């Protein structure tokens, strides 16, 4: 009788808490008192005079300047043919347009009040904006700033869960729009429409799922020669300071499984979702990118300004960890893949944003990268709503 009651009580408790807080799922009792929490962003403008750009460190010969500021929450950047740059945000719900007016940058808000319009892409003269629950296309926006958007939302069949479903989007060399659908939790068995990367025709038709087992990718790009897609992916939280580490993956063909929720990083089995041979059939990353690093934007450098050794190497922004007692990341890494693309070396390139890793003191969070026609590289700082320009001058 006692046991039946106990079982009934347990069952009741399990029913009540069948869906624990998604981002805390998997927080073990040992970490119950942990005070780690996502880091606060800012919604207000930061004047250039309040940006300590002098603290940025770069290899010898490189220089950095504040290129633009006043775009709170600005993150992914897409450049139009005329040189205007479009920037998405998350909570603030805005998309910015940054215009270079000969040595001086101005910005305006193209659209606001969207639900996390993080995804921006330029294609055929049109700006594509993807929020969690909306897809908009602005045709010819660079020439016609007041153009009304075409609402493409219905074509994309966006699922309802919001967590990890703000988007990074980009058009591939195949002219298709690549869109990630993150796992709507920290760790869970994702419903079938999540934890994957899809591609669509530009009008939203012809959807294909090209990769599964992808927890939360916030950046991808294509290799300049092989045209294969490389993407960054955030590791799960609440498994300790050591990881599992974030990933840099390569898609050699469509249909691969990248492991979530059973297999993380280079073959780390999940602590909560245990499966025998959980890493079997899983495509492991080219390289890991550090514990809780928050790997974001990624580019292959093909410009002529930086020294030759950087040609066709990657730059990856690491926004920096929250789920770690000693902070990690807050930098831009230079990643050099081997010729066969099966492994890579990771070296810190742009640092100085993190002032005290133990105290968690930082001032900026590099999020996305853009190569400019002159070969310089723009780096967006989501924390301060600014864009920095990294250039190289032979010394």
């Amino acid at each position, binding site marked *: 009788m006692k046991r039946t009651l106990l079982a009934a009580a347990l069952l009741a408790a399990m029913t009540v808490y069948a869906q624990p*807080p998604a981002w*805390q799922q998997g927080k073990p009792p040992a970490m119950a008192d942990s005070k780690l*929490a996502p880091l*606060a962003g800012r919604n*207000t403008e930061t004047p250039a005079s309040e940006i300590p750009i002098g603290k940025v460190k770069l290899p010898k010969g490189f220089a950095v300047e504040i290129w633009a500021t006043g775009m709170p929450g600005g993150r992914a950047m897409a450049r139009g043919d005329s040189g205007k740059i479009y920037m998405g945000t998350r909570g603030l719900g805005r998309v910015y347009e940054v215009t270079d007016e000969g040595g001086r940058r101005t910005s305006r808000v193209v659209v606001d009040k969207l639900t996390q319009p993080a995804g921006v892409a330029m294609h055929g003269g049109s700006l594509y904006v993807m929020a969690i629950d909306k897809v908009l296309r602005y045709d010819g926006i660079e020439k016609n700033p007041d153009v009304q958007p075409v609402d493409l939302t219905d074509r994309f069949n966006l699922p309802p869960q919001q*967590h990890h479903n703000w988007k990074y989007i980009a058009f591939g060399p195949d002219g298709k729009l690549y869109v990630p659908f993150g796992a709507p939790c920290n760790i869970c068995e994702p419903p079938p429409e999540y934890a994957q990367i899809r591609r669509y025709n530009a009008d939203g038709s012809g959807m294909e799922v090209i990769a599964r087992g992808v927890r939360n990718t916030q950046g991808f790009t294509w290799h300049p020669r092989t045209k294969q897609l490389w993407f960054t992916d955030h590791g799960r939280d609440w498994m300790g300071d050591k990881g599992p580490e974030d990933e840099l993956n390569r898609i050699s063909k469509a249909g691969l499984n990248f492991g979530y929720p059973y297999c993380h990083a280079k073959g780390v089995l999940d602590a909560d979702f245990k499966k025998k041979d959980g890493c079997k059939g899983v495509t492991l990353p080219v390289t890991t990118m550090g514990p809780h690093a928050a790997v974001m934007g990624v580019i292959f450098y093909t410009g002529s300004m930086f020294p030759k050794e950087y040609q066709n190497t990657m730059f990856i922004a690491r926004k920096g960890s929250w789920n770690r007692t000693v902070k990690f990341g807050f930098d831009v890494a230079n990643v050099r893949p081997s010729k066969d693309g099966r492994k890579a070396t990771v070296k810190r390139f742009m640092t100085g944003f993190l002032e005290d890793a133990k105290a968690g003191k930082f001032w900026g969070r590099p999020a996305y990268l853009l190569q400019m026609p002159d070969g310089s590289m723009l780096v967006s700082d989501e924390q301060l709503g600014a864009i920095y320009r990294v250039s190289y001058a032979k010394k």
Partner: protein
Amino acid sequence: MRSSCKGRWAWLTALFVANALAQSLPERLQLCDACHGPGGISATAGTPSLAGQPPIFLENQLVLLREGVREVPQMAAAVQGLKDAEIRLIARHYGAQKPAAPQGTPDPALMGRGAALALKLRCASCHEADYRGREQMPRLAAQREEYLEYAMNGYRRYTRKGGDTLMAAALYGVSDAEVRALAHFLANHR
């Protein structure tokens, strides 16, 4: 003699619009206090207390209200035309005020249920053990009960925009009755 905040809303709106550019900070704060209570301790149903809220939280919310990302009609006129610099000053002011003490009469059974839920949902890991909040995460202790319930429902039903998706995720699967218990516990938390 206190007239209701609702009744004053019309003339407050007129005042805000007329003076949007001419107000000094003390004048602004007086208008905030008119609804949110002296020193930001609210005695008005549906209007939250601001006293002792983390400044980053207030700052970010004021921007979201100004932009209409968070749609709160009563706030629209009040925040119209506010500059980022003014928002920072207002946020700092209320952050430095002495927070409210619990105003209601706690129901022991509901308090117990709320406390157990708060523990289970690990509210304190972000909002601090005494629920005073920090950074972008608001003070919950002694906030008005009906406001806490309203705010949590806003996250659950995706009607409160501009926040992270974390609160929606944190309250995923929590029932209406449980939200009420949480609100009661937090509003009466000492």
